[in-house]
């Protein structure tokens, strides 16, 4: 029976694809038949936002556009990032927060930014705050992903790569829009955006309100060996606004995630209690004048950000133990009765980040384009509150209902402190000849708490033939230790993690319709910060090399096919991220099968996630006694297929429907050995949406 169903699906696709073939093609010749008035009505697709085409950019860059987001039916930024070669987004045990991994490295080595602001919290080594759940796409204009080191331009935490999400601003809100979406797992969103011009000033704003119950995965065993379903619901509010006049721009954003259910605590026990929240306020002022003086352009920015995060009534670090046997994780409570709450650890933190940066672009020397700039950052963790119901030895006090304030003591998860940072950067793009361009740059960062770091980069872009572009790139980068890492070091001064990367890239557009690209990469990382012997230390080295292959094919006006394939070859030592697949592939097809209808189908294949031996279950405290000495098999491959249909009913109305995990694959996310049977991903689910433009 099942067999017949899949056959019919295949036949259906075959039939639809053959219809695509039967449609008569149009050619770009048509553009030349249009009048100027008509041409001025056409929307243009900007390749890069800069003067360089991507194939010539001195880095391995992928730009995801609004068009990509809409066609693929991505509703969260985390979904669309999986389409980038070399990038794998995995869902972390805590709240299934999306972790971006680039080229087989640790997620901590990724710089994740929204409009140039790092999403990193001072308290954590992660590229995002603890309750980040990705970001709704309605306000997103484009996403720029640089695989490869970015510290020479962006400073800290850009060892593996940089993801910059750019929201809509002047010029990119072309039409006012409101929209709504409903889907599986009781997921609901509404959004709207409006742009207008008042007295020579472009003003725009957008909102997005979403909530979901999450996909409630069934977990065979948590750290205690208990089976159960975890809740992963959350609510999101995203408000953004901007004002632009001449060379000036002001951007103000407010985002909030609330009722974020984490599912698990930090050690892998079920935590049904925690409903976290995080609020972020950002105000930025920007000035850009490309012709401030002969041969000089200038950019200046001043930013303020406030980030507050709270774990609510949680975290619940261990489940309650009410009766013997008092085996771990249960401890016999001292006098006062049985533990009824489990171990509670409530954490609240607030931080502010202030940044001023000025840079100039000088074009006065022939064949050189030089950028020189500098800035100052003031990073302040100004409030830390930490309440716990256990003593210094970790034993729950009494029945666990009374909380002790440990803020400001060495037991607190973090301490209020300030980091100041001054930096200078210089970059020169030197056109050596008609076909060779050399980019050389370096950035010097001087930190108040751990010293300074200098990170150079060099990129040679060679137009080898009319079509073939070859790039050879070298870069050094670093990750700054977080406040929590620095606090929990006793014997030594914690140094930044450093990396050295070599890349060789080729882009070959065979024709207007067909393009191939290939990137070879090799990372060498040193001083990776690890928890070892009760403190954070600069640990061992890690290296990874690999290859990314990309192809784009547009056989017809209305049909586009994209694909990429990545092979990662990491050092097989303790630093290997076994969440990361050795291989993954992505394939996407967009087909406008009727003028008002478009259809997308895409597949992610995540293959070969071999376990590190350290992830076998040799610790008899984990997974309860049932799973003692379990040798965890390597994860099965994930094969996730999504399909989206979009219908432009009129100039005003647009409708879409999307099925995610179309084949209902039993997909799992790899996790540490505390959860022996891994994290199930959502089964087949769907959404429908409507947009009204006015």
């Amino acid at each position: 029976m099942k067999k017949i169903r899949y056959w019919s699906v295949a036949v259906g696709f075959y039939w639809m694809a053959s219809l695509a073939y039967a449609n008569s093609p149009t050619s770009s010749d048509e553009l030349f038949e249009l009048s100027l008035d008509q041409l001025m009505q056409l929307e243009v697709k900007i390749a890069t936002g800069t003067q360089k085409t991507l194939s010539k950019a001195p880095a391995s860059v992928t730009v995801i556009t609004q068009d990509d987001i809409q066609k693929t039916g991505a509703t969260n930024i985390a979904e669309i990032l999986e389409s980038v070669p070399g990038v794998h987004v995995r869902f972390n045990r805590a709240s299934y927060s999306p972790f971006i991994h680039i080229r087989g490295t640790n997620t901590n080595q990724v710089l994740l930014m929204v409009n140039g602001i790092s999403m990193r919290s001072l308290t954590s080594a992660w590229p995002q705050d603890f309750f980040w759940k990705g970001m709704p796409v309605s306000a997103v204009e484009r996403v720029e992903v640089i695989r490869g080191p970015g510290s020479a331009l962006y400073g800290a935490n850009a060892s593996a790569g940089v993801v910059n999400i750019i929201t809509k601003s002047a010029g990119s809100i072309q039409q006012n829009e409101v929209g709504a979406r409903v889907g599986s797992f009781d997921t609901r969103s509404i959004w709207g955006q409006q742009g207008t011009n008042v007295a020579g000033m472009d003003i725009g704003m957008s909102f997005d309100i979403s909530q979901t119950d999450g996909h409630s995965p069934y977990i065979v065993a948590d750290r205690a060996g208990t089976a159960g379903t975890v809740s992963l619901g959350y609510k999101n509010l995203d408000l953004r606004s901007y004002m632009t006049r001449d060379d000036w721009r002001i951007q103000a954003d407010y985002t909030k995630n609330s009722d974020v259910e984490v599912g698990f605590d930090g050690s892998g026990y079920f935590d049904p209690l925690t409903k976290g929240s995080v609020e972020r306020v950002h105000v930025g002022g920007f000035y850009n004048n490309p012709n401030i003086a002969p041969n000089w352009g200038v950019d200046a920015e001043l930013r303020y950000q406030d980030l507050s995060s709270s774990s609510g009534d949680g975290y619940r670090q261990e489940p309650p133990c009410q009766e013997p046997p008092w085996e771990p994780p249960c401890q016999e409570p001292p006098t006062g009765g049985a533990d009824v709450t489990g171990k509670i650890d409530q954490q609240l933190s607030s931080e502010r980040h202030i940044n001023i940066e000025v840079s100039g672009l000088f074009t006065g020397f022939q064949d050189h384009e030089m950028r020189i700039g500098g800035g100052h950052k003031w990073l302040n963790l100004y409030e830390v509150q930490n309440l716990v119901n256990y003593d210094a030895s970790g034993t729950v006090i009494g029945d666990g209902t009374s909380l002790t304030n440990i803020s400001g003591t060495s037991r607190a998860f973090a301490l209020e402190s300030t980091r100041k940072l001054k930096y200078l950067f210089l970059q020169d793009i030197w056109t050596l000849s008609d076909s060779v361009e050399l980019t050389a740059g370096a950035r010097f960062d001087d930190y108040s708490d751990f010293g300074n770091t200098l990170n150079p980069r060099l990129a040679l872009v060679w137009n080898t033939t009319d079509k073939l572009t070859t790039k050879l790139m070298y870069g050094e980068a670093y990750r700054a230790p977080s406040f929590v890492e620095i606090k929990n070091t006793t014997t030594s001064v914690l140094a930044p993690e450093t990396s050295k990367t070599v890349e060789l890239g080729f882009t070959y557009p065979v024709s207007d319709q067909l393009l191939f690209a290939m990137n070879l990469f090799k990372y060498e990382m040193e001083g990776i910060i690890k928890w070892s012997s009760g403190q954070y230390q600069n640990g061992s080295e890690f290296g990874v090399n690999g290859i990314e292959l990309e192809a784009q094919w547009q056989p017809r006006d209305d049909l586009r096919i994209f694909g990429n394939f990545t092979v990662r070859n990491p050092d097989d030592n303790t630093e290997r991220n076994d969440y990361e697949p050795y291989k993954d592939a992505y394939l996407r097809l967009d087909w406008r099968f009727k003028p008002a209808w478009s259809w997308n189908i895409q597949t992610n294949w995540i293959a070969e996630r071999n376990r590190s031996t350290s992830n076998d279950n040799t610790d008899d405290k984990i997974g309860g006694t049932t799973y003692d000495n379990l040798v965890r098999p390597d994860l099965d491959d994930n094969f996730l297929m999504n399909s989206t249909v979009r219908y432009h009913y009129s100039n005003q109305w647009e409708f879409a429907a999307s099925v995610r995990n179309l084949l209902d694959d039993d997909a799992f996310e790899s996790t540490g050995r505390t959860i022996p049977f891994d994290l199930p991903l959502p089964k087949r689910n769907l959404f429908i949406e409507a947009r009204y433009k006015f």
Partner: protein
Amino acid sequence: MGQIITIKRLRHWGVLLWLLILLFGRGGAVWGEEVPEYKLKAAYLYNFSTFTTWPDQGKSHFEFCVYGKSPFGAALDHIRGKRTGSLPIKVRTTQTLEGVAGCQLIYIAPSAINKLGQVLGSVAQYPVLTVSDNPGGLERGVMINMVTVKGRITFEVNLAEVERHGLKMSSKLLRLAKRIIH
């Protein structure tokens, strides 16, 4: 075990499905609903040439030049064989100032924008329509500068330069210009 076999079979079908899809399609065409920047700009350039009148130079071809690395890919192929006025268009790319001689229209590509002054200087005495798509191009002496505003391409005209080189522009072109400097 039964479950695992089902997953494998699904994957198998998924692969087959892709193979089927890949079997289709040929021909050539433009991209999706939004038009790539330089395909659109190529069409603009063609239009600029048809709305401009050159003094008669007794030429057999209209020489349509791109200075610097051409960003157009194959988009200019469609101009070849078309006519502007009565002359068939010949498209060529040049990287040198010597190569500029004989051009009636020069588009200065972004890659060569730091040589803009030299290019304009070398054609100062000739009836050549100069076009760029660089912020501030107009002020630096280019006759037509293309600008992208709100996802659409518009253009601005330096009429003083146009007239100084003995060219005439149709009123229709001037009416559509977003900005004219005299």
